[in-house]
């Protein structure tokens, strides 16, 4: 009988025996598989935001859980492979995992504990902290880029902390329950008591100081007056509570906290409590953030309804305007100019009714506001010029498209003349047509279908407008407002057009690429991968894009667009959508880019993707160094591969990657590794260059560039050497040619589901403009070959997986060509036109090459 542990003890006395290489290689392969599974899971989660999928709360929980589990195991695998504890990596994992769980539990992990959120940082993703109204304003400012009031928000967190400090949370909940159970009996008394309690409760420690600080940052020592506005959960969203909560205008800095309390107390005013009861909102906990923003000292203010509430004017928006501040207009106590404008661009003026405006509300320098009389000569003047009206109309329609609801927009124009959006909330009256002829299934009836069932929805939604075809590399500065962009490839360049375009359709592109991400951020209906949109759709043709159903109709289908505005719920505002988007911030961005950089360290892993990237890199490195040091594999130690092109390529064969008969002087013909073989064929297809206008012999050109780095590359201990780790199905290639750095990781020839190619391309010495042009070129080519492409600065990542082995090997061949072709290009990409030319040239040549290959 053997004593348990005896073997271990002996082993320890003798020093650890080395783990057999075959075991380590298996571990390595396991890491690759898990790494791929993780990336796939991350990609899947991103896909769900595209609008094609229906997912629920459980999906978010489950996938976060599954992903966390996989990432944890991935680190454990690395620990086994490297025989290290990886404490820093586990710590990074714990940190990210914790943040994700807090997000899922609805506990926002705010870096600030002072309960102040500057408007400049607020978007709908932070609606739980900033309340709905201010979050919408934050979107308008930070996502759409319109001018709004500056300022800050005292968060929902502050409210809850104050409530907890005064031990009010339970009494509030009980009062709400009583009201609901007794159907509102005693509502007036409950309301009084609750408001009194709020007015008397102590505020969180430090809140006063934080507010002072924020005010000073905004106004310095100047005597600025503030608007203090409610921003409750649910306010201005599915339910409205419009106008029920308090807003105080002209508040001096010293009065902000008392005003804050009064606004908070209005959360429990009778009207709001009654509204809660009638709208079955008993289960929703009342909570409020409060916005504090410097008053805009307006020359002209007013409101705009994107749908005029008039029976006879179905297609108009209405603007009311008056001199001075806007409150009397909103309250309906002022004489106002009224303009009717057409909803469709160019928003022609239908009618204007200029009133005699005898008084106006202005800021009182000491605080508050006062009414004064308007000078005689200004009374009968129109408040707005044609240009101002046009700007207002465009702004409002862009907001409507973003929020997907008819809107009531409050705006002001200060002495400088720039339009400032004060707030935008859903119009409580819905477009008339929805009630009367609300049958949406009739909306598209009989309309000619131009495209149907093709493509992938990168962002759902419906919109109508004229087609504007954009050619690759075309100047985008005169893109017409309100048009639908139609292009061959998706491109992040279109980001800057998104605020003025109504939709995007591309022939080629992915729903997870950079452009798609931005389209989702700006909620522009986007259809990619349609194959033929640029051929089917004509410049200037009026179309309606329904990205939810993957259909493009001829003509502007007003009724279909309208349906978009009368939905009860906007998907992008749902808990599910916002939460998935928020957790993905902790999951999918890749911030660890350059393995040669010092910042490439476990401590700097900010996302699960970073961790996966780090582990993958370390595993590949480890395999390389094991292959050099592990005593078991002397025979498969690094070998310099003799190649036709002077690549200086070192090969580590793990398993069947080279002909077993080949000795130390292995050459290209000995390659058995399928992905490497295909790639080399592409690289060697130097016929591509013979017709090139540059009179440089391919071989000598390459060797001259490689030579610059020759000494470095040859040094095996350096990262960045030209190294291929291969087996029969696997290739991991780090190739530095000149200043370009390419990484190819491919597994081809197993089952179709395991087939995967990842390609990364970066570097260069020319200016950033040329490098990004080259990145666009590489991206466009990769997309042409169905890669999922991501461009970050001058780095391009392309991935493709799960295709049959044959076409995947063709893609490896193409990558070989691409690596060779683009290397010499940097200097020549001096214009967008050159980019276009080279794109076409490459595609032509590769087509010719592939034909001869077949």
């Amino acid at each position, binding site marked *: 009988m053997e004593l348990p542990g005896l073997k271990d003890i002996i082993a320890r006395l003798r020093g650890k025996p080395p783990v057999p290489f075959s075991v380590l290689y298996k571990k390595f392969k396991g890491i690759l598989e898990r790494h791929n599974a993780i990336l796939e899971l991350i990609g899947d989660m991103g896909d769900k935001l595209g609008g*094609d999928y229906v997912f629920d709360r459980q999906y978010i929980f489950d996938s976060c859980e599954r992903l966390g589990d996989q990432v944890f195991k991935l680190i454990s695998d690395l620990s086994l492979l490297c025989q290290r504890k990886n404490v820093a990596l586990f710590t990074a994992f714990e940190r990210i995992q914790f943040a994700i769980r807090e997000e899922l539990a609805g506990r926002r992990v705010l870096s600030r504990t002072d309960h102040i959120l500057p408007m400049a940082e607020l978007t709908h993703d932070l609606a739980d902290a900033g309340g709905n109204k201010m979050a919408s304003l934050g979107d308008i400012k930070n996502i759409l880029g319109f001018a709004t009031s500056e300022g800050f928000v005292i968060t929902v967190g502050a409210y809850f902390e104050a409530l907890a400090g005064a031990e009010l949370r339970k009494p509030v909940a009980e009062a709400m329950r009583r009201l609901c159970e007794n159907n509102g009996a005693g509502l007036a008394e409950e309301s009084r008591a609750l408001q009194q309690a709020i007015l008397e409760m102590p505020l969180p420690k430090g809140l006063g100081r934080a507010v002072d600080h924020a005010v000073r940052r905004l106004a310095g020592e100047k005597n600025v007056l503030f608007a203090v506005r409610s921003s409750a959960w649910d306010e201005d969203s599915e339910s409205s509570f419009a106008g029920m909560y308090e807003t105080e205008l002209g508040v001096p800095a010293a009065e902000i906290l008392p005003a804050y309390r009064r606004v908070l107390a209005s959360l429990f005013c009778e009207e709001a409590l009654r509204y809660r009861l009638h709208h079955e909102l008993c289960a929703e906990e009342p909570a409020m953030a409060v916005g504090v923003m410097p008053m805009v000292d307006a020359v002209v203010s007013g409101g705009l309804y994107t749908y005029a509430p008039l029976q006879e004017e179905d297609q108009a928006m209405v603007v009311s305007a008056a001199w001075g501040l806007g409150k009397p207009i909103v309250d309906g106590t002022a004489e106002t100019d009224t303009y009717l404008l057409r909803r469709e661009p160019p928003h022609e003026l239908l009618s204007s009714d200029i009133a005699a405006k005898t008084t106006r509300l202005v800021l009182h320098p000491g605080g508050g506001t006062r009414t004064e009389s308007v000078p005689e000569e200004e009374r009968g003047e129109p408040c707005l010029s044609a240009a101002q009206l046009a700007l207002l109309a465009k702004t409002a329609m862009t907001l409507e498209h973003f929020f997907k609801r008819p809107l009531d927009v409050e705006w002001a124009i200060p002495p400088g003349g720039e339009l400032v959006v004060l707030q935008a909330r859903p119009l409580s009256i819905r477009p008339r047509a929805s009630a009367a002829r609300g*049958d949406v299934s009739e909306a598209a009836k009989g309309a000619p279908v131009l495209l149907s069932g093709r493509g992938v929805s990168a962002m759902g939604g419906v919109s109508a407008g004229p087609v504007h075809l954009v050619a690759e590399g075309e100047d985008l500065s005169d893109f017409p407002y309100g048009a639908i962009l139609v292009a061959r490839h998706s491109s992040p360049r279109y980001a800057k057009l998104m605020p003025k375009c109504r939709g995007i359709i591309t022939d080629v592109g992915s729903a997870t690429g950079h452009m798609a991400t931005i389209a989702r951020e700006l909620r522009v209906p986007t259809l990619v991968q349609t194959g033929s949109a640029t051929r089917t759709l004509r410049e200037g043709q009026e179309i309606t894009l329904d990205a939810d159903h993957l259909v493009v109709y001829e003509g502007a289908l007003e009724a279909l667009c309208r349906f978009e505005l009368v939905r009860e719920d906007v998907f992008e505002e749902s808990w599910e959508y916002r939460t998935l988007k928020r957790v993905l911030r902790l999951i999918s961005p890749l911030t660890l880019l350059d393995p040669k950089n010092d910042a490439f360290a476990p401590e700097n892993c900010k996302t699960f993707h970073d961790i996966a990237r780090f582990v993958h890199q370390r595993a590949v490195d480890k395999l390389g160094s094991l292959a050099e040091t592990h005593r078991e594999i002397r025979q498969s130690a690094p070998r310099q591969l003799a190649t036709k092109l002077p690549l200086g390529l070192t090969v580590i064969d793990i398993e069947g990657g080279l002909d077993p008969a080949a000795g130390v002087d292995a050459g290209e013909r000995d390659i058995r590794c399928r992905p490497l073989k295909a790639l080399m064929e592409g690289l060697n297809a130097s016929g591509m260059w013979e017709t090139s206008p540059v009179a440089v012999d391919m071989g000598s050109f390459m060797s001259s560039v490689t030579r610059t780095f020759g000494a470095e590359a040859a040094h095996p201990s350096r990262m960045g050497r030209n190294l291929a780790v291969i087996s029969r199905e696997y290739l991991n290639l780090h190739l530095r040619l000149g200043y370009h750095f390419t990484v190819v990781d491919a597994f081809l020839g197993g089952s179709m589901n395991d087939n995967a190619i990842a390609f990364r391309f970066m570097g260069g010495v020319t200016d950033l403009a040329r490098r990004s042009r080259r990145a666009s070129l590489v991206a466009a080519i990769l997309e042409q070959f169905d890669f999922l492409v991501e461009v970050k600065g001058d780095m391009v990542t392309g991935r493709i997986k799960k295709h049959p082995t044959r076409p995947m090997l063709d893609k490896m061949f193409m990558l070989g060509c691409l690596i060779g072709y683009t290397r010499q290009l940097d200097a020549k990409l001096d214009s967008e036109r050159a980019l276009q030319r080279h794109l076409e040239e490459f595609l032509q040549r590769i087509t010719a090459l592939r034909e001869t290959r077949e």
Partner: protein
Amino acid sequence: MTPEAIESPASGPANPQGGETGRGKTSILVLDDEPIVGKRLKPFFQKAGYEVEAFNLPLEALARIEARRFDVVITDLKMEGLDGLSFLGKVKALHPDTDVILITGFATMETARQSFRKGVFDCVAKPFKLAELLDGVRRIEKERGLVP
């Protein structure tokens, strides 16, 4: 949730999007205790030309099923109170010609087999594509002769 589907007689040429039948629109009842599912499916199918009612509470949906017949029922499998399989049983007992599509969290073979025995037309695993579900409904329409 108050159902607010609008009934209207069929008229005019066939809707290119589908959903239109000789005797009116194909009717769908959606039941899922995750409100987001109904919120997404209802406008989607409405736009595609269907008459849709969506529910979060099994008992409410059951009351509705007792009150009228739907062409198609789309229901979650796992819910608090009443599970999808029993709901399915009740639907089939009341209206044998109503077709049911089951939404499952994790489709196990066993529940799938069980559900097919009970006459489920199709199973869709969450998260699913809207287009996938639309395909399912269209197949039902075709098999039942609801569309020309």
